[in-house]
């Protein structure tokens, strides 16, 4: 009597790999996309810069009043320093969810969080 294996070793390897990959693939391609993944930095009328939020880093941007320092950490982003008087941008704190926004209008620098499928086309404030 010949015994037929239902699963070969190769099948098991493929299925194990799939079990690992499937949750990631689902969340990556079919998730709600509302969690911010990138930040759009606008400095005056320059071309916007898109920054990934996965890599911790500090950036320095020069506006008309001077340098603003922006920090990325653990999927979040914030103004650390800015040369404006009111420091509204710094007090805005960490931004991490889609459409969250902070701006140093005196220094003409803004941060907008964007997921893959942004919830909003424009922010009113």
């Amino acid at each position: 009597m010949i015994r037929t294996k239902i699963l070969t070793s190769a099948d098991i390897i493929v299925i194990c790999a799939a079990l690992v990959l499937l949750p990631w693939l689902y969340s990556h391609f079919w998730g709600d996309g509302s969690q911010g993944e990138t930040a759009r930095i606008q400095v005056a009328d320059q071309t916007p810069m898109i920054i990934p939020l996965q890599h911790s880093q500090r950036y320095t941007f020069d506006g008309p009043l001077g340098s603003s320092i922006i920090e990325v950490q653990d999927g979040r982003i914030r103004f650390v320093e800015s040369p404006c008087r009111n420091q509204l941008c710094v007090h805005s704190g960490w931004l991490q969810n889609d459409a969250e926004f902070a701006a140093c209008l005196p220094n003409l620098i803004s941060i907008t969080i964007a997921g893959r499928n942004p919830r909003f086309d424009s922010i009113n404030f």
Partner: protein
Amino acid sequence: MRGPTLLVTLLITALINGCGSSDINSEPFQQSQLLALGTLVDVSLWDVDTAQANQAIHDIDTQLHDLHHNWHSWLPGRLHDINAALAKGQAIEINDVELKLLQQAQQLAESSQHLFNPAIGQLIDLWGFHSDTPEGPPPASAAIQKLLLLQPRMSNLSFDDHTLSSNNTAVQLDMGAFAKGYAVDQAIELLKQRGINNAIVNAGGDLRAIGQRGERPWRIGIRHPKQPGIIAALETQGDESVFTSGNYERFFEYNGQRYHHIIDPRSGHPGSEALAVTVIHNNAAIADAAATALLIAGPKNWHNIAQQMGIHEAMLIDNELTAHLTRAMAQRIQLQHNINTVIEEPS
């Protein structure tokens, strides 16, 4: 390929293919940002030829710079010349655009019971807000009272054809609560004249949207007045402006107290009864003026003033973070936080 392997392979393939549906780069969406009106201006366009879009953006940039120069509240320009003439009690010739804008401002001042009052330029200057970096200290009460007694109002202005004059030399125009709305209206009109009918012009947070984004309406988030993020969301319908006045926009702090730039023409001090007011109207200049007037009116009187100004869709966030909504606004807006709400009924 064996059954289980085939099934897994198909599943992975299907999931990966799914990513194509969320590729926003394939959408005919363009967003440009300009430095104009002393702020950042976003222009969002849907399904517009790139060359046509670039030309329109360039022309809007020129248009906004001209408006900024002409109507700047304290730098030399056309408004500066008009104010100089009014201060001397002299009449001055104005053009069609200036006539239309000032007459509209006069009507809005009247309907707002002068809570929207662009004639109080001296008072705003006294508080130090005719500066890029207002810093205090707040003015002395005696100086405020002296200006209040002069009662500068838009009704002091009279128009004889294209000749402007005033019967009160205390009138000094400050179009800060109106000019941005007017500028946004002009930018949208330019786009419409070019056949561009799906767009948003957002000037420093205040916007007018026309058409829609493909098959769906434009989606707007209204910023929370006290913390990062969005307090409410709405979808625009056809051609609508969404303007918010808030006490967090321009201010200075002195001895630990915050003084914002929206001055109550009755008291001569910054309005203190609300955090923010959002108004929806098809005309951005009207929405701009109304948002200022309703913020000054505060929670007790805002609904009455809104009715007089012909505003049907408005939301006021008071100092306790309660959202006061007109009935029409309540039907449009989706609050994103669990906050108290009061729906105002027409009286």
